[in-house]
């Protein structure tokens, strides 16, 4: 049995009366490409936030790279890199400065840092733009930079929350080629969410489907299709989660963006 780099047991998160994540358990093997799928508002991001120490669980346990994100937050934080669903770059800094900032926060020694930044920026084809301000970047360039940044400190796990959202097929393919290469060559565990089912089917070795805060199916793409008697993962997904459209409340952040946009 492969060693599990992520172990989640009976994880629950409540916001007041609302239970966003209900008693979920799952594990991800080291070096695996794992897709975490679910409709909007199913609890994906909440789960990722708990795994990555941004949110405290109501109950249950998590082990991440051998550390508990609640009790040994900093040790757990060292073991992963993350690309958030929303941008998280400092737009008033250059690409190089965003990378430097991250390297210093993660205590990557100066020489290693310089070399690694150059290597990663070349890899995501942003090296010639390293001194441009991030605010001048396109959505795809920002995503690529965030991925480079998330990998700077050699994490064992990379979390990607809808990394390909809003990207054109060229950039999407480029990103996945890159991530699969990293996964195969460096053995980095890839944990991602996406709404593109073909992407999940192609990339992931293991899939978990979450809906209404509960995990309703797990297995490989093939297994999920077999379980539901469908031809494509998209059909399997719809069969598992129903075809009703989900409401996702505009959170305060979304409202604030609108507010800022008006000024």
């Amino acid at each position: 049995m492969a060693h599990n780099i992520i172990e989640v047991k009976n994880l629950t998160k409540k916001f007041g009366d609302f239970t966003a994540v209900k008693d979920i358990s799952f594990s991800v093997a080291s070096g695996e490409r794992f897709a975490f799928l679910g409709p909007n508002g199913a609890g994906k991001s909440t789960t990722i936030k708990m795994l990555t120490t941004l949110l405290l669980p109501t109950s249950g346990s998590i082990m991440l790279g051998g550390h508990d994100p609640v009790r040994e937050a900093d040790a757990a934080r060292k073991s992963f890199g993350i690309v958030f669903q929303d941008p998280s770059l400092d737009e008033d800094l250059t690409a190089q400065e965003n990378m430097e900032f991250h390297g210093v926060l993660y205590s990557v020694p100066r020489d290693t840092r310089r070399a690694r930044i150059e290597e990663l920026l070349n890899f995501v084809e942003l090296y010639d733009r390293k001194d441009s301000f991030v605010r001048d970047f396109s959505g795809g360039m920002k995503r690529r930079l965030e991925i480079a940044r998330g990998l700077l400190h050699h994490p064992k796990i990379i979390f990607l929350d809808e990394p390909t959202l809003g990207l054109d097929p060229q950039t999407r393919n480029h990103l996945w080629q890159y991530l699969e290469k990293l996964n195969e060559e460096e053995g980095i565990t890839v944990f991602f969410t996406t709404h593109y089912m073909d992407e999940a089917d192609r990339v992931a070795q293991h899939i978990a489907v979450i809906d209404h805060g509960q995990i309703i199916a797990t297995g490989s793409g093939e297994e999920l299709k077999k379980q539901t008697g469908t031809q494509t993962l998209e059909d399997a997904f719809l069969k598992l989660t129903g075809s009703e459209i989900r409401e996702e409340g505009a959170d305060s952040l979304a409202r604030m963006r609108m507010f800022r946009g008006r000024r």
Partner: protein
Amino acid sequence: MNAVYIMWLREIKRFSRSKSRIVGSLMQPLLFLVSFGFGFGAVFAAAGQGNYINFLAPGIIGMSIIFTSIFNGMQVIWDRQFGFLKETLVAPVPRIAIMFGRTLGGATVATLQGCIVLVMTLLIGFHPVSWLLIAPAILIMLFIGTLFSALGMMVASLMRDMQGFQLVMNFLVMPLFFLSGALFPLSAVPEALKLVAAIDPLSYGVDALRYFLINATTYGLGLDLIVLSGFTLVFLALGSYFFSRIQV
């Protein structure tokens, strides 16, 4: 330690690049200096209080510092909005180092701003009592900047978005400024106002600035420093506490 430095450096870089912010934040002190300074100058002198520009200049420096540093502390809210806060929150760094670096950065920026305002007051006709004592006055600026950056961070940690910004400006920053002795001598005001000023940390900041710049003081430098230290420690502690509790 590196985390404190990089958080500090980020504030400095952002400030030095934002020319509109620098120019914009100089307009308000300039307006106060010109309108109050020249507008009330004659009345102030007739009342036997001396040169109003000299009295006012340290107060306006204090004003620019409190506005800049509280605003800087509240940048946490923008960072939350633009997502950058998450990048710092998943980093394997103690929360207190992040908070401390940001606070020092905000204080440094506010001090730079205070120095620019100081130069402006000199151009308008302010005469400091000694050029040498400008050095300790700059240290006092840094002190005031740290105190209010920490306060700004504390407030920002408790807010989810910028909707409450006006509330903070009108119910916290404005009273702190207007009720301190920045604009008028505290020796001649009604007892009630004297009491309010006595619990306003900015009163002590401005008083310490006046001690070094025009050799005048209401509370005495010793008490100024004690009160400023006390408030700074309390706000740093509370700021770190609330900042460490942020979840996104």
